[in-house]
């Protein structure tokens, strides 16, 4: 029996923890950029960290042309060092990859089926080529850490939201449209604001900063954001403490309608002593501002028939009778949306 125990221990030592590849033998992919290329190929650019003896970490970018099905397999074995995707933080999709319906599906499918890639990976889109963005963020000192950017720059992210791979896959499966947060970067800065609207996987348009803010409220993602109202040329910032929505579907004059009640709890970040001494007036101003943004976001989405709010899916789950009656390609476009905002000040 002692021989068997000894054998097990020997095997345990033979099994190297990193599958034959130690840390020094790996490149840690942090950002992946995907652009469309000729035929069914994609131009994949990787921003990766190379653990190095002297500098510890060196960020580089590398491009390769390949079909999505072979992305990780091909890249893992390329070069002397193994490309490791276990620490991938962000995937950037170039706008040109959204001019055909297939790429978005393929990119999401490839990423979610690779067990090394975390479902918490952030999905971003760019109006420029993704390769440019990845090269820029790899070149700048803080650029690789897009994920940390989300963590450390909450105030700058008021006009964008964090779209994880899991959420993107879920939305892509259940809705006819999706809004992908937009990234731009140069050697100095990373800017994540606004969003690219995709309907059926195709680029339809974009949400500007204000519309993206409205979209965030419609998605119940407002918590932690800052809303600034202007009174007598003075700005009063409010931190959003809670954002909960209630959606009711009903028929009105033979038309499908939905009441979207956005309930927001806000907390003033500064002391204020303006002429408006009533809290209700301040709350009214906030309500008006949020409502305008939410309505303009909903209008833009409806104009592109992009149900990024998942109203069709919610209706199917909540009232299948009503869903069956109105289920058609332009259901979201023709829906009557009534948005009401209530703000409670802390």
């Amino acid at each position: 029996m002692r021989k068997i125990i000894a054998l097990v221990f020997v095997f345990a030592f033979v099994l190297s923890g990193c599958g034959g590849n130690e840390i020094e033998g790996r490149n840690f992919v942090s950002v992946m950029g995907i652009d469309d290329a000729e035929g069914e190929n994609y131009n994949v650019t990787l921003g990766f960290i190379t653990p190095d003896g002297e500098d510890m970490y060196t960020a580089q970018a590398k491009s390769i042309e390949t079909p999505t099905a072979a992305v990780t397999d091909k890249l893992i074995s390329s070069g002397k060092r193994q490309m490791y995707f276990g620490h991938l933080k962000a995937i950037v999709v170039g706008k040109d990859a959204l001019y055909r319906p297939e790429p978005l599906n393929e990119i999401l499918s490839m990423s979610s089926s690779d067990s090394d890639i975390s479902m918490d990976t952030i999905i971003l889109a760019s109006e420029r080529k993704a390769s440019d963005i990845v090269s820029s963020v790899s070149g700048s000192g803080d650029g690789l850490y897009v994920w940390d950017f989300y963590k450390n720059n909450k105030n700058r992210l008021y006009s964008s939201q964090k779209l994880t791979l899991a959420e993107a896959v879920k939305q892509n499966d259940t809705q006819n449209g999706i809004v992908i947060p937009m990234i731009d970067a140069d050697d100095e800065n990373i800017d994540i604001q606004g969003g690219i609207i995709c309907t059926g996987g195709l680029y339809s348009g974009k949400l500007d900063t204000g519309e993206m803010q409205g979209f965030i409220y419609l998605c119940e993602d407002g918590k932690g954001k800052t809303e600034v109202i202007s009174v007598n040329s003075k700005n009063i910032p409010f931190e959003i403490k809670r954002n909960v929505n209630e959606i009711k579907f009903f028929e009105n004059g033979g038309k499908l309608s939905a009441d979207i009640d956005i309930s927001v709890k806000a907390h003033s970040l500064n002391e204020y002593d303006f002429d408006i001494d009533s809290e209700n007036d301040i709350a009214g101003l906030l309500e008006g501002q949020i409502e305008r943004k939410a309505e303009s976001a909903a209008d833009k989405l409806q104009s592109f028939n992009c149900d990024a709010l998942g109203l069709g899916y919610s209706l199917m789950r909540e009232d299948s009778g009503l869903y069956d009656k109105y289920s058609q390609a332009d259901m979201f476009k023709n829906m009557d949306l009534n948005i009401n905002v209530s703000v409670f000040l802390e």
Partner: protein
Amino acid sequence: MNFSCNDRISNNQLRAILVAGLLGNLAVSAPLGVIEKSGSAAYISIAIGGLAAAVLFYILIKLTSAGFVKSYEDMSTESLGRGISFVLFAVVLIHIVLYGGFQLSISARMVQETMEKGVGKNFASLIIVLVSAYMAQRGSECIGRIAEIAAVLMLIFIAFIFIVSAPSMDLTVLRTTPAESRGILKGAFDAFCSMSAAGFVFMLSPKTNNTKKSAMSVFSAIIIVTAVLSFGTALSVSCFGLKEAERKLWPVIQMMNYTEFPGSLVERQEVLMSGFYVFSSFILTGISVYLSSSLLGHMFKSVKKKWPFLLASCLAVYALQYCGKDAYGDFNLIYWLYRFNPVMYIIMIISPVAAIVRRKK
């Protein structure tokens, strides 16, 4: 402190073996088939199927425990004679070896997929089988003690994951449509089949110190497994959406990686979860090897040594990993085997019923 070593287990150890052995393995294989049948209502199906299995186990063990003697093997030989019991042992042996082997194959594939792609599947299996053989050689008590530790660790970690993940659940996805509601019972039957590990339950129950209480131990074990699986399935469907949860091979395990640990304590939670799963695999493989070698020992009493049976069991369990061509092949094999689980209820109660009848005569 001296521990007794009489190859008997306590009722707590019986519960721990079932929880630790079944929890990890069913968390991987059970939800997939059920989601296919009942969609978003999969968590309801699992709850119904698991409850049905628990109640059936409770009733059957209560009714038959009067016939339990030292072990299932002795009980069968005494009540049915050597000839019939030999055939019965052969059937149970095949079932247990297949169950252990197919689950080992899935475990090894998951180690390869989630932990290290560089580690060969057959190599991972070999390590699990070797350690399991050592546990099996030490007897049921040894496996019971290890299972007690494993079950507690697994449940604490899973409970923590669930508590952290629950607030962000998307309840809209979990609302069932009329079409899904119609599939609830079909899904529940699948869940019932997967949780009906009657071969293991009826071979282990007579080994407890107090057989009168073993019905409650089995009942509580299946209820614990059901609760975890049902909630885990609801979480993974809520996190990934229905289609992606269906596409994923081990949605419950991968869901763990989506959960944000407070303070970024752990970078890749799913690997940690896979570790617990592998722990579960050690227990199940260990108990499979132990029970099958014990059955072989009773079938071929002329061979006095223990190690040939242990070796044969290990080889059989290990060899089965070559049956599935890929992960989907492994899953198809285990689903095929689950269909026979309800039949095992009937096969397994033959011996205790015969023992009761014989005593009354």
